């Protein structure tokens, strides 16, 4: 009996060793490039630093100093605005695109490629392209178009109320196509029989969308929603290139603030790490809230 158990354990161990060996390269990479920097960042946030050297332990002083400054509150508020505008502009649009392309009978491949095309452009090239469009000079593309209909040129990127929605429009233009493809994949898994049955029962297109399609992609939409929030919460290069965080910090994001502390002249890695830890905590809380509601929803189902 014990001999048989021993053989089983040995076989299980052998199979586990193989599994661990397969995972080993990934684990090593994760350890050095994800977990170690993450823990080092947390440790650094608790220290007074000189460049990357830890000078002395100061507890939560970096957090108190960072949170107490106006630019942090401004960046925090801006980051929530980015998220709000992103959900308003960028959450529904990919679903609409997926629906429209899904309903298209001819040229579907073309439209799929067309909506995905901006995603293939390098991010910085997209920002530079749109900066020419929204330029406040007379030579700005939008101002040229406005001049054609007799309107005066406007300054878009120097207007503190417009700058975040404009950046989100640009980010959505670039990213919506990729999300739409994921929705299309989700929609294609809906059984056609459901639509046929609904059509026989006389359901309109809206009823089919509301009662068949949306419930079917609800979970997918929930996952993409949280991924979108996480992604937008870390927005950095778009405002950094387009507006440099201005005017008067009106487009400064938390990640950009972190960059400023680390590389913007002061080289204060301790405070930069404190901002990074705060962003991580906020995202953890938001993900936990989402998971909580998602589990509840699953329980109801």
């Amino acid at each position, binding site marked *: 009996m014990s001999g048989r158990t021993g053989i089983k354990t040995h076989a299980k161990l052998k199979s586990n060793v193989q599994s661990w060996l397969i995972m080993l390269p990934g684990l090593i990479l994760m350890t050095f490039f994800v977990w170690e920097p993450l823990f080092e960042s947390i440790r650094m946030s608790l220290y007074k630093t000189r460049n990357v050297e830890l000078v002395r332990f100061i507890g939560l002083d970096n957090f108190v100093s960072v949170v107490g400054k106006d630019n942090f509150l401004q960046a925090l508020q801006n980051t929530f605005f980015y998220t709000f505008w992103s959900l308003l502009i960028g959450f529904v649009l990919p679903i609409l695109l997926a629906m429209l392309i899904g309903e298209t009978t001819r040229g579907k491949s073309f439209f799929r490629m067309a909506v995905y095309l901006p995603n293939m452009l390098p991010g910085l090239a997209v920002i530079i392209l749109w900066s020419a469009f929204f330029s406040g000079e007379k030579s700005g593309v939008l101002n040229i178009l406005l001049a054609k209909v007799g309107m005066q040129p406007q300054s878009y990127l120097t207007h503190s109320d417009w700058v975040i929605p404009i950046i989100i429009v640009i980010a959505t233009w670039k990213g919506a196509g990729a999300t739409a493809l994921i929705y299309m994949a989700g929609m294609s898994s809906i059984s056609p029989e459901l639509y046929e049955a609904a059509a026989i029962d006389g359901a309109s297109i809206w009823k089919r969308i509301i009662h068949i399609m949306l419930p079917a992609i609800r979970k997918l939409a929930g996952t993409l929603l949280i991924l979108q929030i996480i992604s937008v919460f870390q927005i950095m290069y778009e405002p950094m290139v387009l507006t440099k965080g201005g005017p008067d910090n009106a487009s400064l994001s938390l990640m950009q603030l972190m960059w400023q502390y680390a590389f*913007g*002249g002061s080289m204060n890695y301790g405070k930069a790490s404190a901002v990074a830890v705060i962003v991580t905590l906020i995202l953890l809380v938001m993900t936990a809230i989402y998971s909580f509601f998602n589990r509840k929803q699953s329980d109801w189902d």
Partner: protein
Amino acid sequence: MGKLFRVISLLLTMCMLSGLIAGFAGAEDVIDADLTCTITLGNWPADTAPDAEKALFEGYKATMAKQYPNVTLVPDYYSYTLSNYVPMAKGGTAPSIFQPPFTDPQLLISQHLVGDVTDALEQFGVLEQFSPSYVEMLADENGRIFGLPRDGYVLGMHLNVALFREAGLVDDEGLPLYPKTLQELAEYGQIIKEKTGKAGLVFPASETYGGWLFTNIAWNFGCVGESALEYQDEDGRWVCNFTSPECIAAMEYMRDLRWKYDILNADATTTDWAGAHSLLGTGEAAMNFAADDSVDQPTANKGLPVEDFALIPFPAGEAGRYALAGGTCYMFAPNITNDQAVALMAYLKILGKLPFLDDSIIAGMRADYAAKRDRGAPVIPAISAWNDEEYNAAKQAIVNEFSNVDMRLYADFFDSISEGTITLKSEEPVFAQQLYRELTAVVQRVITKEGADIEKALRKAEESFQEYLDDEINDY
């Protein structure tokens, strides 16, 4: 046998002659065989540097070894930052020579972290020729010299002369009637905007550029001395001072440029240094605060013909005429001996940084100017750190040989420096980049919100920067 004897005799004669020649040459090469010391040379080219650069420095080393055979050179890859230099200087391990930016000399001098080379300069006979414009930046209050410029620039203004012409702001000879004061800058800018529809002034106010340029305007409104933007109090603590009447007046001037005279470019808050040059070069703006080292940007890089370009001195303000002098300089470890100081001056002489010209330096200058002329960049003289007429005339002769500009479009800029009618200032002494960032935010607020409360915005920026100073230097 006789033939063999003749060949041997000939060979021996040749050997003797070559030894004699070598002996004479060696005697000429050696300048001081008694000077005995070791100097460490910071910023030595790394192993990854281009081969030509490495060979150049090896050549300097070989020349030094010939001229001063008992001076030992120790190459050091050290690259200066304020934070890494201070512990090295305190611990006695700083390289004998290093290269800080012009933001730091006065701070290093006041903290006794650099060595005095005044006597060594005197020994080389060049002390009296050191330009007074640089003395303020590289000397202490007693006139002792602690550094030499490596390369530098002085901030002035770039003009698009074509727009001045279009606006009728030219004299009988077609030369631009340029603004000599900040008030005239606003007025001339307004005329240009009205007559041409183009921005009178491009003001890059993004990131730290806005604050950087604003400090120059603030100096001219009197933010110097007791009203400086940052200063050390009697306890040695650094104090931020953005709410002086002079600073408020300077910021009100910024507000007027936007809301009263309306001469700024439309996207000032997103414009950076390169963008500003682009707007001037492509005829979208008439004036740009910029220096003599970037005259190729609007011209060769953006297509503005050299005859439509001018460089003028920074306009004067109500409290004087100041301009930023920036760049990089050479400074020396605080513990250098007099022999080391002499050896370091000898090394800088070989590098062409003292007012002596030799064939290799002249050849380098000629190649540089020829390349500039070929690509359509203005060929103008570099600002000289030396008031040595013969030396400057020799350099000017080389410039003239390749000149492609009407020097009347540059004369006032260079004269203001050589005649001392403009006071050159280095950047604010500590944490200048962070200071610029704080001031840029205020500039952005003032030029994007007409009713912005200037004093309140400056007070907030002052509190923020003071906290930074306390954190980084006062309570460190």
